[in-house]
């Protein structure tokens, strides 16, 4: 009997780095950026023939605008990524967005706030963000304490929060135009718009959270194999709660960024945002079943959608084409993703 001598393989402990991606993951996560590049090429070329505009699609200013315009859905989609990695879903973000916006704009008209002048602005932001966190916490607590599936819980609160939006101010829009706030929101710093800074800042922070912190890694573990996480002593409930509070916060942040600039919210605003956010997250390759996904790829998904809208408008596509193309591209990407991840002929036919 030849006894193979045990050879302990010590992996070289490199600097303080998070786990590296396997090659297939890198390929799949890179795919969305490939798609973005494809769109850019297509619209630049098609735009030459179809657009009445004289400015090029790839104009730097246009690309900066692209980032800025991606911000409202983008910030929400980033939060949705975490929720989905965690194995949940949140359909109520659109309503949370609207309710936070109402608090933001209405609070500035409260007498004591009005008396504070422009100092009311940061306080109004705080109120709006607080609203988002509270609404998220309600979802999180219900999911945690009742054990009802997040899809159902947030489908319910999507209706419920929207009801609250209407109850706040009837069917009237809530408005407060503050030019200081608008100027801040429209400002450009180092060429990037305020909204872009918020978007990129959120990307950076959430990327760090998901790749470097214990909370982030536990969120992956819970979404990946909840029972294993529970057995390993990870308290699933508080992580759910934190992540729902986080997405509530981000929906509110999105509202803060957007309504600082626009100053008026209709009670219907933010409808369908949840669906766009989920679309962006899925385009970015995050698994609906949880446990797998990346913040950076979601950014790619958000940009891909915004680029599609912008580009279709640029080449003069009409409403029906835009709807048809966006719907079919979503399905096509899902199909491609599946083909790329197939195991080939040895797969079990179940």
């Amino acid at each position, binding site marked *: 009997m030849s006894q193979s001598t045990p050879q302990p393989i010590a992996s070289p402990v490199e600097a303080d780095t998070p786990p590296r991606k396997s090659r297939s993951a890198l390929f799949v996560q890179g795919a969305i950026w490939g798609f973005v590049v494809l769109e850019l090429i297509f619209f630049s070329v098609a735009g030459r023939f179809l657009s009445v505009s004289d400015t090029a699609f790839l104009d730097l200013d246009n690309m900066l605008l692209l980032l800025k315009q991606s911000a409202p859905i983008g910030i929400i989609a980033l939060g949705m990524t975490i929720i989905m990695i965690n194995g949940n879903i949140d359909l109520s973000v659109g309503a949370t967005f609207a309710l936070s916006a109402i608090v933001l704009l209405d609070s500035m008209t409260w007498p004591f706030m009005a008396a504070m002048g422009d100092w009311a602005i940061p306080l109004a932001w705080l109120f709006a963000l607080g609203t988002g966190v509270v609404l998220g916490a309600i979802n999180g607590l219900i999911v945690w304490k009742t054990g009802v599936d997040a899809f159902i819980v947030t489908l319910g609160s999507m209706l419920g929060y929207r009801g609250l939006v209407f109850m706040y101010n009837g069917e009237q829009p809530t408005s407060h135009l503050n030019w200081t706030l608008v100027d801040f929101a429209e400002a450009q710093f180092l060429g990037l718009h305020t909204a872009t800074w918020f978007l990129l800042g959120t990307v950076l922070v959430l990327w760090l959270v998901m790749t470097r912190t214990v909370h982030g890694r536990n969120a992956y573990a819970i979404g990946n194999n909840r029972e294993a996480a529970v057995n390993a002593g990870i308290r699933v409930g508080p992580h759910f709660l934190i992540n729902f509070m986080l997405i509530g916060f981000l929906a509110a942040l999105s509202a803060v960024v957007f309504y600082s600039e626009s100053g008026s919210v209709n009670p219907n605003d933010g409808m369908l945002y949840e669906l766009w956010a*989920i679309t962006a997250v899925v385009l970015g390759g995050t698994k609906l079943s949880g446990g797998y996904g990346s913040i950076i790829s979601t950014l790619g998904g958000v940009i891909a959608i915004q680029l599609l809208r912008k580009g279709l408008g640029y080449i003069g596509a009409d*409403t029906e084409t835009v709807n*048809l193309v966006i*719907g079919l591209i979503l399905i096509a990407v899902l199909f491609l993703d599946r083909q790329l991840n197939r195991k080939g002929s040895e797969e079990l036919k179940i």
Partner: protein
Amino acid sequence: MTALTKAGIGGLLARQGILVAFVVFMIVFAIANPRFIDIDNVSGVIRSSAILGVMALGVTFVVIGGNLDLSVGSMMSFSTIVVLDLHDTLGPTLAIPAMFALTLCLGAFIGFLVGYLRLNSLIVTLGMLSAIHGLTLMWSGGQNMDIADKWGTWFGFFGRGSIAGVPVPILMFALAAVVLSLVLSKTPFGRKVYAVGGNGTAATFSGVPRARVVFMTYIISAACVATAGLMQASRSLGSQNTVGQGMELEVLAAVILGGASLLGGSGTIFKTVIGVLILGFIQNGLLLIGLEFYVQYVVTWVIIILAVWLDVAAKRSRLWSPIA
């Protein structure tokens, strides 16, 4: 002994919780406003719930089969617009089968993607929600679609007619519910839907053609949508392109209220009908006691959470979830 009785009540609540809630709810509203249980009002509510209801019947199949269908609202707009347009070009006798054929094609496409290609149903039907809306706008050119000669057609029968004093939409809803209930609970196909939704792999290992079963659930859903579109078109003899917009979530809410699990494998047609009626009566009841329409959103929220909570609590026989 008392524990046993308690368990008995708990068991009843668990099994028929939604029915109990429905009865309690009706009694409370009837006391608040006796007109609520007026036969005209009741028949009115059922009639206006019929369209949503027929769609919910189809989605029940999809959900029990373990999938979702978010495209039904958009598809219903499509059917309505198509049948109205074809009514004036082909005549009503040809328009109805033609519309059914086209709608079933859409259902078959979704069924193919979800059943045979195994793509995620949430995303597929989300994509189709948008794509079908595009198709509808292309078909209609974005115009409202109205039948030219509203007084010279029998087409209004499905939405406005009545047989022996009972409005036709109610009859169609009831007929669809009975037929589909039999299909789901009594036929081999119905059994397979439960098996595929309950454990698709085990169903495959038992020789159940999983892909075909899923495909068929979407065909049934599309057929229900087409029926709903027919009722809708017939009822108003004209329509906007957005007539079904947002209904997918109402439909889903009704199915969930009825207690179908989104994981698949459970739910019944009867319970879905109760879910539909609850939604319809909430809306009507709140209007009757003079509350604004949006209060119904909040009430629906609370009722959905409570209903589903009660259901899962009964299944695990404890109120609060075991999540640490």
